């Protein structure tokens, strides 16, 4: 990088670390709040502590890994439809 160029917010790895650690903290606090706030729940699973957190995490990991596998089937060259 050009040394004269301004250093931006996330050019400093420390700031990235701060961001990631704040995310960890927020997640921990949100699960912690489950013990304090009563969530109205219709289904039994919903009432589990941290249900939404676990569901969100698992859903996203599944989504990404499944999509990664899907890529093996559906991915083509950018010119796929061009060559007749």
């Amino acid at each position: 990088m050009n040394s004269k160029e301004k250093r931006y917010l996330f050019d400093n790895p420390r700031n990235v670390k701060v961001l990631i650690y704040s995310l960890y903290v927020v997640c921990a606090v949100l699960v912690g709040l489950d013990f304090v706030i009563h969530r109205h729940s219709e289904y039994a699973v919903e009432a589990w502590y941290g249900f939404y957190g676990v569901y969100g995490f698992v859903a996203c990991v599944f989504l990404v890994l499944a999509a990664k596998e899907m890529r093996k089937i559906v991915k083509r060259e950018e010119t796929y439809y061009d060559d007749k």
Partner: protein
Amino acid sequence: MTSSLAPFLIFYVGAGLAAITRGRLRQVLLLAVPLVGGLNLFYLGRGDLVTFGLFDYDLILLRVDKLSFLFSIVFHIAAFLGILFALHVKDTTQHVSGILYAGSSIGALFAGDLITLFIFWEMTAITSVFLILARKSATSQATGMRYLIIQVMSGVILLAGVLVRYQQTGSVEFTFIGLDGPGGALILLAFGIKAAFPLLHSWLVDAYPEATPTGTIFLSAFTTKLAVYALARGFPGTEILIYIGATMTAFPIFYAVIENDLRKVLSYSLINQVGFMVTGIGIGTTLALNGAVSHAFAHIIYKALLFMSMGAVMFRTGKINGTDLGGLYKSMPLTSIFCIIGAASISAFPLFSGFVAKSMVLAAAVEEGHPIVWMVLLFASAGVFHHSGIKIPFFAFFAHDSGIRCKEAPFNMLAAMFVAAFLCIAIGIYPAPLYALLPAAVNFDPYTAGHVLAQAQLLFFSALAFTYLKLSGLYPPEMVGINVDAEWSYRRLLPSAVRAFIATFGPIDHAVRHLAMRGTQRVIVWIFRHHGPEGVLAATMPSGAMVLGVVSVLAVFLVLYFVS
């Protein structure tokens, strides 16, 4: 004082004036169109305001009720945003077609009968295609034609359905249609094409990323949401829509994760969002319908905002693929912030517009006892945050620094994004005015501590999953390439089937025709032999021969006369 001026007329006249003006005057005029339209809406009366008879049909050009009124407000907002965002563009075609398209969509909203709906339905197709063709690349020409064919086909199916239904019921009024007869099924299919039902959706992900940076803002707002409106009026409580909608929320997000073209990612997420609305319409309770239409309202604005942020990136950098972008927060900080606000809204973060709208559909799914559907919707909610909420801003504005240094978006683009972002937050913080507009009275409070907590957990842990996958290197890297989808059936399968058909039956066809030609040739030769110049039957007879004939006939008469 009430007005009964059809709102689409303002847009059509505005388009005409925009076509003949230039420069600053046109810019003022363009911006005035949705504002005057909005003023007219304010004074617009209720009920059937403009009706006329055509042949045997009673047509209702302007029917205003709560549902059409709500959609018309957000269509006016979308038109304003789209026009403001495109104000710097010097292309007359784009301005005129943008306004005509908005006007046609608004005309369709107020159609009280299905014939009028059909006319505006086709108008939206014809007027919008220019927003794709205006890219003026070979790809966009081909894409535009595919788009037009599919859109017009939707209209033709609609008309067929309307006529069949007219035979059954004797009415063309646009009220509840349902799936009782073949007419209803055809109409649902027509709506389904425009709403991008699964397997009927590829026109959308094909066309929207190919439109001009400014044209996509218009496209993203009107066509699919017009279909949502039509479904909400014609097919509320139609059970199959629940499952169609749930499928729509789930399958596009897989594509969105691996897609490189960021506007295509947004197109897939558009289908995901419309899926929530379709599910709500399928459930059909008051809460679900309120959820569906308020989601449509909020969605149009934040989707426009997201497409605007990507349009601004494209306008400044000329690039839109995740592989080419990154680190743009350094050059375009305001656009980055607006994009993040749009991302937070579509992800339904508390205090943003998606939160106060979408949760009604989920609540309705729980209430009506659809646990599986609820699980799918929840999965899709996490997924939409993942690809629209994180992926879009992350790969465009952060991620690895692409080294691109450009100017911030032009003022009119920033202004349009600001207005949209403001509305996203305003609706999120203070949903009461939106709730007041909904078709039925709202008895729903999104801001209960439990609900906020649940949603926050879902979203933050999704972000955690992204961070984990990214740090562990499991996250699939952005790759150059395309992912085949349902469009493969008509862009690859059908052409190759046709080629195979020709290769197989071509020779047979050739042989059969050759045989037929030879047969014909023989017949001609045979006829020529007898009737040709040299032929016996073609010889001319002398006039004496005729006299002989006449005399013979007379002689026969004479003989017969004597005999009898």
